[in-house]
């Protein structure tokens, strides 16, 4: 492990880190040349279409595909009988049941069959010709329904994990998570103010603009080449192989450009279907989801019910916290309630707490990660109650947060102590920003909130090849979902000492680069960037020895400065990198190096935000007037794309807060599966989003990087809720804070104002 002192200088004097070169993949994306998965066409390619369940919960009595297979142009049909049954202990068991329903369909949109045909039109007709007999079963749509006594069960064998005594009867509760410290009741007894509130949120979708798409070309020897839109092509490879009962080595996955993910493309939906259809038809097959399918069948994030109770002394010191969280997992067990528990109190140093969370299955699409998964709902509860506490004890809400903010050395609720973290610095930055003291008009209000996301490390591989002309190719295994190729080029440039324009960063397929974990958990610039740095350091060592050879001097006499070898103990003229690569053949052959690592010590991300709103008292319409976010990036490699991540996260949070929600009818059928009625923010809904990049370096990373991708989405919901209260005096505790809800709260209070603990 690298030594922090030498790798994170207190006053870094970087040449390329912190600059804003044009991203390497930019030109292709502004000219239409960039190839996304759905853009690929192969000779003889067939079009696929998927048949999905029209019911929220039903037993599949029978499936008859004969009529479909009889249609001219239909080349292959796959159903549950084409896929092996996995051992339920297999970690991918649920993924394989989500991709193809077996005895039961568990939500509207659950896959029942897939067809490949000579045209989209015929493939669609064929799926409509498949006769499926269902026995409709009663369904549950919310944690309340699913946890109720006698609720219909999704899985007859699901036993709740981590309960005392051990569960013996099946239920819809997959897991209980408990975190506690100190004596929570004694803590509340110490408090002068105790406030307890309950909050609900609805499922929301990641909303990437590119629907899931895949092209598979499988040959008769059961090997397949797969082009797809994914955040992790190595996971696509292993999950697809597992579902088919194949070896991973039988499948080569080539990452296409990915049109947004935000967590929603960290699992698979179509790939095994396409691979098997292609195998059966002996032709390449393309499967592309419609937007309707994306909403009905791919992962939204959890709907939740959360109760938070906080106690504080008159001076604002928090003495105790209690939280109860229930998160929907969708149709199969997940970890979302557990993650909520990890995040709900982490920004603050609370001496006594008890956190109890539940993961609950419901008849909805399977929940999958969405940007800082589970944290925004938890922050909605904690940050709103904190705002009430601040008002109750008469302390500025920002000061109250600063006073209780977690600092280096404080133990997180999970147990481990925080290293250097930037929460207080982000709060300070907001306080100093002119926004925080700007005047407000009538019907306007201001709210603040903070957010936390833990970030992850995991495994990454990188290789660097120096070309004869002194340019470099840097390959990694991390799909680029937001500009990571630009940051890879900059970090490589910093080590090699050549301009980022001389470096071509690429994303390698599963056969051309070492295993790399999925682009998730804000890990790519941190972990994969670290691998790039290590590979470049190896090649610098090699460059120095080649220079020593060319000078015929001892390697010890060579140092690498600013892109050239310098002779420390002699008067040889410096050798720039291009001169060494030009002579590579004479000095031992081409220069190449690679590095792989399991990145340790991902630095937690914190941010603080302030938001101004105006509320129309007659219609309940909330307008975002101004928004400022301050985030600890550790070190901003390419500040423009750090800002872009911060702004994108904020705006997704604004959509979640105000209008986005899954709406279901009484039968569990989604009513708003399209961009018209699933209301994501449009440009005219928003102001500019001001960003303040705070840099508290992550000591374990050579350049101090922390992940920046996710945490920005965490505070907007409570910041907006607190601003609405500041403007109107009413508290909104149920999402979305749509005009209907806000007007209802304004008209009859709904017990939503402060002081009704």
């Amino acid at each position, binding site marked *: 492990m690298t030594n922090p002192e030498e790798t994170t200088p207190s006053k870094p004097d970087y040449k390329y880190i912190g600059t804003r070169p044009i991203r390497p993949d930019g030109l292709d994306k502004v000219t239409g040349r960039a190839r996304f998965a759905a853009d690929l066409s192969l000779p003889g390619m067939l079009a696929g279409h998927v048949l999905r369940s029209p019911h929220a919960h039903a037993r599949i009595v029978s499936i008859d595909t004969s009529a479909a297979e009889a249609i001219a142009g239909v080349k292959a049909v796959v159903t549950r009988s084409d896929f092996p049954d996995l051992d339920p202990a297999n970690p991918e068991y649920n993924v394989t049941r989500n991709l193809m329903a077996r005895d039961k369909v568990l939500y509207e949109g659950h896959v029942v069959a897939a067809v490949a045909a000579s045209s989209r039109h015929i493939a669609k007709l064929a799926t409509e010709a498949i006769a499926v007999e269902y026995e409709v079963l009663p369904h549950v749509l919310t944690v309340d329904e699913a946890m109720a006594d006698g609720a219909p069960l999704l899985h007859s064998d699901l036993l709740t994990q981590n309960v005392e005594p051990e569960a013996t009867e099946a239920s819809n509760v997959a897991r209980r998570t408990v*975190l506690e410290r100190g004596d929570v009741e004694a803590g509340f007894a110490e408090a002068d103010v105790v406030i307890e509130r309950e909050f609900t949120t609805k499922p929301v979708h990641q909303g990437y603009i590119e629907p899931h798409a895949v092209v598979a070309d499988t040959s008769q020897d059961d090997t397949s080449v797969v082009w797809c839109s994914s955040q992790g092509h190595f996971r696509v490879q292993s999950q697809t192989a597992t579902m088919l009962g194949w070896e991973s080595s039988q499948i080569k996955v080539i990452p296409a450009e990915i049109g947004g993910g935000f967590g929603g493309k960290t699992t698979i939906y179509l790939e095994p279907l396409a691979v098997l259809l292609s195998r059966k038809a002996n032709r390449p097959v393309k499967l592309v989801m419609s937007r309707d399918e994306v909403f009905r069948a791919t992962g939204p994030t959890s709907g939740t019910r959360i109760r938070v109770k906080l106690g504080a002394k008159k001076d604002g010191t928090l003495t105790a916290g209690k939280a109860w969280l229930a998160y929907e997992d969708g149709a199969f067990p997940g970890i979302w309630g557990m993650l909520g528990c990890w995040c709900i109190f982490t920004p603050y140093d609370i001496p006594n707490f008890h956190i109890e969370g539940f993961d609950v299955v419901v008849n909805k699409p399977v929940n999958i*990660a969405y940007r*800082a*998964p589970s944290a925004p709902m938890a922050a909605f509860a904690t940050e709103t109650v904190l705002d009430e506490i601040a008002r109750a004890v008469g302390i500025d809400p920002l000061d109250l947060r600063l006073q209780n903010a977690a600092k280096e050395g404080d133990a997180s609720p999970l147990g*481990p102590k925080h290293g250097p973290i930037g929460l207080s610095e982000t709060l300070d930055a907001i306080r100093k920003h002119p926004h925080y003291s700007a005047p407000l008009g009538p019907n306007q209000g201001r709210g603040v909130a903070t957010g936390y996301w*833990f970030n992850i*490390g995991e495994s990454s591989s990188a290789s660097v090849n120096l070309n004869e002309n002194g340019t470099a190719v840097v390959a990694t295994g991390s799909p680029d979902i937001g500009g990571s190729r630009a940051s890879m080029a900059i970090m490589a440039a910093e080590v090699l000492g050549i301009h980022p324009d001389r470096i071509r960063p690429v994303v390698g397929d599963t056969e051309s680069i070492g295993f790399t974990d999925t682009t998730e958990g804000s890990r790519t610039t941190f972990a994969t960037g670290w691998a790039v740095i290590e590979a470049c350091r190896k090649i610098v060592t090699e460059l120095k020895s080649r220079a020593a050879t060319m000078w015929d001097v001892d390697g010890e006499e060579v140092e690498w400065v600013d892109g050239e070898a310098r002779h420390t103990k002699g008067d040889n003229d410096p050798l720039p990198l291009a001169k060494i690569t030009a002579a590579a053949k004479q000095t031992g052959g081409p220069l190449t190096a690679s590095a792989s690592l399991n990145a340790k010590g991902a630095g937690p991300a914190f941010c603080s935000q302030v938001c101004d709103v105006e509320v129309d008292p007659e219609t309940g319409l909330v307008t975002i007037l101004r928004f400022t976010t301050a985030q600890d990036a550790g070190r901003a490699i390419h500040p423009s794309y750090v800002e872009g991540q911060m702004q994108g996260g904020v705006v997704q949070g604004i959509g979640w807060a105000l209008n986005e929600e899954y709406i279901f009818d009484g039968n569990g059928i989604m009513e708003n599966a399209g961009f018209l009625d699933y209301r994501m923010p449009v440009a005219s809904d928003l102001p500019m989003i001001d960003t303040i990049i705070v840099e508290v370096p992550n000591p374990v990373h050579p350049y101090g990087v922390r992940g920046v991708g996710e945490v920005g989405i965490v505070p907007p919901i409570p910041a907006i809720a607190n601003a609405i209260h500041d403007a109107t005096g009413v508290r909104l505790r149920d999402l979305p804070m749509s005009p209907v809800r806000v007007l209802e709260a304004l008209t009859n209070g709904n017990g939503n104002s402060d002081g009704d603990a």
Partner: protein
Amino acid sequence: MARIFLGLEQRRFTGGVAEVEMQASTVKQLIAKLEARFPGIAEQLEGTAVAIDGSIVAHATYEPVPEDAEIHFVPTPSGG
């Protein structure tokens, strides 16, 4: 001696013991020693991530355990 902190899910095997002190060269050896003292706990600990002095490491089986380190076993995280 390293200090090992045990979460609620682990305390089911320790009869409620929340913290123990142990000497071990690697996480693997540490788990073996914990298993010897608290039968059944190993299965619960394998596959989890390990926080060594606050720095979370996934797949930590062969990680060295520094003298006087603070060790927490935490579920392997994921993200968006």
